[in-house]
């Protein structure tokens, strides 16, 4: 036990960059840096949230009609998938903290699996919208599917779909990057890069992953739920 601890500390010391006084400063700095980065990410999505708010406030009907086309079952399933992936991610970080690299690798692999699961379900939804011409642009065509209630404001429903694709697309892009980052952790983890003394990358990628989950937690109700129309 003692020798392995010494080894851990050596790994950690190799990971200490020259301009930091000690590991604690390095860890705090890395973590704060990651939080600052997530702050910029919030503002990045913030521009889209702002557009959504403005148009939803102005063209309520169009947004209601657009959100009728959302598949709530798939959306809710995806929310659950992401929450599960967040759990495995959090447990993975915990395994790294406790010095259980194998457990960490397994948990991270499960996280990746959930990530692909999310993207797969999203792809099914995208395909559905695509074949229904619910993709903004010249080929956009919108029908409510109910002859008694033709589309009242297809123009602004198109904006709803523009925002839907932009927001979920950007979110999916973040998922893809996240999967890449977790894969990198898996490889580094297999090579024994992380110890209880040094696991900043795991922690930071974890923060990133949870943030992407967080964005979806808002996207799901905004796009799928709150414009739902009731009673016909």
């Amino acid at each position: 036990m003692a020798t392995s601890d010494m080894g851990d500390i050596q790994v950690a010391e190799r990971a200490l960059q020259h301009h930091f006084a000690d590991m604690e400063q390095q860890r705090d700095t890395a973590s704060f840096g990651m939080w600052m980065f997530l702050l910029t990410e919030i503002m990045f999505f913030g521009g889209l949230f702002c557009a959504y708010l403005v148009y939803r406030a102005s063209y309520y009907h169009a947004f209601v009609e657009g959100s009728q086309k959302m598949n709530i079952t798939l959306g809710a399933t995806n929310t659950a998938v992401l929450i599960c992936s967040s759990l495995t991610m959090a447990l993975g970080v915990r395994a790294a903290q406790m010095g259980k690299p194998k457990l960490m690798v397994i948990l991270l692999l499960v996280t990746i699996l959930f990530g692909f699961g999310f993207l797969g379900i999203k792809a099914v939804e995208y395909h559905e919208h695509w074949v229904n011409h619910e993709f903004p642009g010249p080929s956009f065509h919108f029908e409510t599917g109910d002859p008694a209630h033709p589309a009242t404001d297809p123009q602004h429903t198109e904006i709803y779909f523009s925002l839907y694709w932009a927001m979920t697309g950007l979110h999916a892009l973040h998922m893809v990057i996240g999967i890449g980052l977790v894969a990198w952790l898996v490889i580094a983890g297999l090579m024994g890069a992380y110890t209880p003394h040094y696991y900043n990358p795991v922690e930071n990628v974890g923060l990133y992953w949870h943030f992407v989950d967080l964005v979806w937690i808002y996207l799901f109700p905004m796009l799928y739920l709150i414009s739902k129309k009731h009673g016909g």
Partner: protein
Amino acid sequence: MAEHKEETGPVGHIAPAKLYVAIWAILTALTLTTVLVSLVDIGPLNVVAALVIATIKGTLVVLFFMHLRYSPKLTMATVVAAMFWLFLLLSLTMTDYLTRAWPTNLGH
């Protein structure tokens, strides 16, 4: 090492696995709730409910999964700053959109 209560590793705080599972369970339950609530027509309250539930979920993720609860004050300040600036962007933009239709000829 046995899994018991709160542990502290060489660096940083380690939360118990049970806590993570509990948070996961709450999040899943809330997801189910928000879907069910959206199926019932309660007027403007639908929006309120959806956003309140999303905010509860988000807060749980940030506090526990992202360890904000165990993080330095500076990290909390960062999160508060993010919320504040997002609020500025949204609210000041809406000052325009919400008042555009207000009459300007009140004096006539």
